[in-house]
């Protein structure tokens, strides 16, 4: 009955989808669509966990999936949207490097990860490819944080990194104990709220959320 997961390579498709949504972040300019992209990434992550839970019949993985869905797929995007509305920014400023170049660089990042982790030496999880993809997502999240100018898009880069870390931990250990996962998610939520408030404050004091302008000390 669970044969179809193998036959249609469902896990591979979903993990490639997670990678694609992370890369798509590089090409998106509107902050609204960045948030949508992040939501989609989180939904795919939650779906992946649910399918693995269905495959190995572990109850606590279902809980992890639902918690991921609620926090990353629902709460964090809602909060981010609220911040964006408060700050009245719709577009990211022109990034440091062009779209096509940043897309290509993230493609190269993926190639580097694949090449250096080609032999999945320490992987005994449900699929030998998910670890590579998760590390690629972490690197792409970092890259987004480096190249973007606005505070909100940098926060989204951080969130992508967190999704990648979550996926990496999940692919190695079949999910950590529920209490740890809950703790991490709670930290994440707090982090996003603090960063959000911080971004709003930056906007209020400096009349811009562009982090390039934060070079002068104000007493």
């Amino acid at each position, binding site marked *: 009955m669970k044969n179809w997961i193998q036959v*249609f*390579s469902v896990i591979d*498709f979903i993990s490639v989808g997670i990678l694609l949504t992370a890369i798509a972040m590089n*090409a998106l300019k509107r902050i609204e669509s960045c948030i949508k992209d992040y939501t989609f990434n989180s939904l795919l992550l939650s779906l992946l966990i649910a399918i693995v839970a269905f495959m190995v019949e572990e109850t606590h993985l279902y809980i992890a999936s639902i918690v991921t869905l609620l926090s990353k797929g629902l709460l964090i995007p809602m909060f981010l949207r609220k911040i964006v509305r408060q700050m009245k920014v719709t577009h990211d400023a022109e990034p440091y490097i062009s779209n096509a170049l940043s897309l290509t660089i993230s493609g190269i990042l*993926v*190639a580097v990860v*694949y090449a250096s982790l080609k032999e999945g030496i320490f992987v005994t999880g449900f699929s030998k490819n998910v670890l590579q993809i998760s590390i690629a997502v972490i690197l792409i999240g970092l890259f987004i944080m480096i190249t973007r100018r606005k505070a909100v898009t940098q926060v989204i880069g951080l969130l992508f990194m967190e999704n990648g870390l979550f996926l990496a931990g999940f692919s190695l250990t079949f999910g950590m104990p529920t209490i740890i996962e809950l703790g991490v998610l709670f930290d994440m939520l707090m982090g996003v709220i603090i960063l959000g408030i911080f971004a709003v404050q930056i906007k209020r004091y400096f009349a811009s959320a562009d982090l390039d302008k934060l070079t002068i000390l104000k007493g």
Partner: protein
Amino acid sequence: MEYFQFLIIIIFSPLINGIIKKIKATMQGRRGPGILQPYYDLIRLFKKDMVISSVTSWIFKATPYIVFTATITASMIVPVITTKASLGMMGDVIALIYIFALGRFFMALAGLDAGTAFGGEGSSREMTVAILVEPIMMLSIFTAAISAGSTNIARIAQIQGIFYSPSHILALFAFIVAIIAETGRIPVDNPDTHLELTMIHEGMLLEYSGPYLALMEWAHYMKQMLLFTIAVDIFFPLGISNNTEFSGIAISFSAYILKMLFIAFLTAFVESTRAKMRFFQMPSLLGWAFVLALLSLLTYIMMGK
């Protein structure tokens, strides 16, 4: 039989264009011209006289023939309804792409030859797009070629089964974008307009008239259908016949018609729902497609399927 299958492409390629135009018109709430209109246009152009600028060289006169024959040669390599293509043993995907490149090269030269501003503009744009599109096409075809263990299109068509892997889907999307750019359709180029600021393909043909224009237009229709056929061969070869018996061919031919209609519908849908991009935004779209193609190859290498 296998020696005549390229005639399908030569004969039916204007029809495909007519069908796309009709579907597009229906989607936009117009009546639109009949699906045979491209044939009437071609016949009419063949009957007309030509005006050739006195400053042009032999390149201008040779180009329509070179483009037309290059496209026919390319269509002989591609399996249409049976995997035994007429020149299948002589060329593979790489040869095919460079036969296209030959035609494009002469087209760009002819655009420059007459010395008009719009011709040069069209040539310059066409070559810019070509530089970006060629690697996308190569990489996405290579994904399929590696899994088939051969760059021969007929061989790739035989190997591909019903089940798809992520790498194939990624390659398919990259290839669709490459086809859109290569056939000069929205969002890359608008095939229905002669607005000088936006045209790419029409810019190069602006100086042509009469039978030469007909040859160039026909070659363009053929190239479009050929690219659709390659996409079908590589990514949805289901139903294509491996031999030349009548029953197999009949099934294969009807499957081919259905696939072509589906692609025509898809093209019309994309054209009706998208707006044309500014030319300088195009590297972003094509960069996306390039990353997709690269990822498909990487994913194939990593996952082994």
